[in-house]
């Protein structure tokens, strides 16, 4: 053995190393990899309950002729296209406002805006339900302020039902996203803004041309996570509109039926069709993959 190669060669298979990661790998394999692969296999099967048989692409054909699936897909896209931009814009603006050192009670305000995402889901949905019923708090306030003459049919009109859901999830998740923006803003060198002030850049332009571009990586991150969250929207539509309860439709005319809720219904509420539910699940996987790719592509670093 020469003097140079005194260091032992790293073996391809090191028992000690595998023993350390083995338990974690086993758990991941059993509880993540296997279910993912098995559900992919299930998506090509059909049948009731456990009595599945291979069906090829039948489930995929069924998707295109299933009015409930198309309704859920449309609703999910409406929520995604309206709610994500509204929420992220709102989060960005509140973060910019609460980053201003001249604002009083900043800490209290930040906490207040952040709190919704850590409150109990059940408590908040019960509250929202009671606030948005025909003669609930929201309508009473709107009527008393003279903004509307007749109460808004939050629970009985498809349009307003979707608006209510959007308000609810926006209320819940704006503060969460705001924290990311705030943290990123506090990392921006203050002298950049001072240079802009001296350069005569107006306040709005400092926000649009400096803050927003410098937050691009964080905006991309929140967009992707919010997209995934919205495509998987289940909690609110299930509890507020009663879509999760036995026999209840998700809002008037299933106007708040989302893909996740539909998967739940296919599996646990209707005659259980696990194969078809798995196919719908993979629709979400595909959508998340495509949308995330598009977002990363749109936010890529352009070569000069």
């Amino acid at each position, binding site marked *: 053995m020469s003097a140079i190669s005194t260091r032992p060669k790293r073996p391809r298979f090191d028992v000690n190393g595998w023993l350390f990661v083995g338990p974690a790998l086993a758990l991941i394999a059993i509880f993540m990899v296997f279910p993912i692969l098995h559900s992919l296999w299930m998506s090509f099967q059909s049948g009731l309950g456990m009595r599945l048989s291979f069906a090829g692409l039948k489930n995929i054909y069924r998707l295109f002729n299933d009015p409930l699936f198309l309704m859920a897909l449309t609703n999910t896209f409406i929520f995604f296209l309206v709610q994500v931009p509204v929420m992220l814009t709102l989060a960005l603006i509140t973060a910019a406002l609460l980053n201003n050192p001249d604002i009083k009670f900043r800490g209290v305000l930040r906490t207040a805006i952040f709190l919704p995402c850590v409150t109990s889901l059940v408590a908040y949905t019960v509250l929202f339900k009671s606030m948005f019923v025909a003669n609930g708090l929201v309508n009473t306030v709107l009527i008393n302020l003279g903004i509307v003459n007749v109460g808004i049919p939050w629970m009985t009109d498809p349009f307003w039902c979707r608006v209510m859901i959007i308000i609810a999830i926006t209320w819940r998740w704006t503060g969460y996203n705001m924290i990311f923006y705030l943290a990123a803003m506090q990392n921006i060198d203050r002298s950049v803004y*001072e*240079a802009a002030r*001296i350069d*005569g850049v107006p306040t709005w332009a400092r926000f649009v*041309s400096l803050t927003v571009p410098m937050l691009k990586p964080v905006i991309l991150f929140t967009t992707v996570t919010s997209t995934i969250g919205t495509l998987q929207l289940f909690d609110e539509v299930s509890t507020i509109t009663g879509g999760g309860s036995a026999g209840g439709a998700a809002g008037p005319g299933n106007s708040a039926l989302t893909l996740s809720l539909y998967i739940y219904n296919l599996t646990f509420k209707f005659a259980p069709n696990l194969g078809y539910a798995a196919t719908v699940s993979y629709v979400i996987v595909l959508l998340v993959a495509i949308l995330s790719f598009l977002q990363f592509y749109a936010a890529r670093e352009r070569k000069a």
Partner: protein
Amino acid sequence: MSDVTLRDVRKSFGAVEIIKGVDLDIKSGEFVVFVGPSGCGKSTLLRMIAGLETITAGDLAIGGDRMNEVDPSQRGIAMVFQSYALYPHMTVRENMGFALRFAGLPKAEIRKQVDEAARILELEPLMDRKPKALSGGQRQRVAIGRAIVRHPKVFLFDEPLSNLDAELRVHMRIEIAKLHRDLGATIIYVTHDQVEAMTLADKIVVLRSGVVEQVGAPLELYDNPANLFVAGFIGSPKMNFLKGVVEGGSAGRADIRLPDFGGAVVPVALKGELPAAGSPVTLGIRPSQFTETGDAALPVTVDMLEHLGSETLIYARSTASDLVTIASQSRSNIAMGDTMIARFPSSGALLFSADGKRIY
């Protein structure tokens, strides 16, 4: 006309006064350097001139117009920051042209101005790069370019070279001096580095704890410091301060006894009144003033030697362990631990009273 005048300018943060009444006249085209130790208020004073900090009391005028309440962008100033403060997502060209977009200049004109600044600063090959693809020195040049395109009356530099390595610092120092010569603009420059101050300034303002200690040309401050602080701050290596007691004297001469140096008595030329015998004073001698033929003599022990090639720095101690730095031009064969007699001409020594004021 781009004179800058400050009249009794003050700044307080709550109950704490940071700038305690500064009066200053900066003439058009002058290169003025604010220098002082950290926390002396030099950057705050610069930011007050820029309009990034409000002025608590007093008057600031640029070009004869009162500027206290004027927006930073309307003061006719441009500022270069220590951190460069470049817009990270914009190219060099966009960084330099950004301000002009909001000044309402047509695109062709912006291009012309930016190209002109790029030519002056030799940035042409870098115009389409983003700041992160530039070296520290290049970033600083872009920051200067961003200032130049606005054709300001006054350039403000806030420790612009502090983030650069030593070699680049010397290089950029020369570039900034050249720039001043070529543009002829008024420059106010903040630094804690007295070498930068000495080499760049037409006029140095020495600040300590929010008070101007002395204003003057670099050599004037070096030769005629008004007090102990300025004497110690300007010049490298630092001036030696020796504790002494007035022994006696006559008109125009004071005999100072140095108890820490075996009671050596140094006759110092005196302009003002002779202080009372026995009053404590401080004698100031620059390391370079020591010569072999001086009339005053100090017995010392050599502690450390630094051979710099052009000169040798001798760090020596008195009997009472007071440190004395001696710059020797000759390459003598002194070794550590040797005892020697350090000589200097008494006519060159400076005398300070107990409260730090210069008495000669």
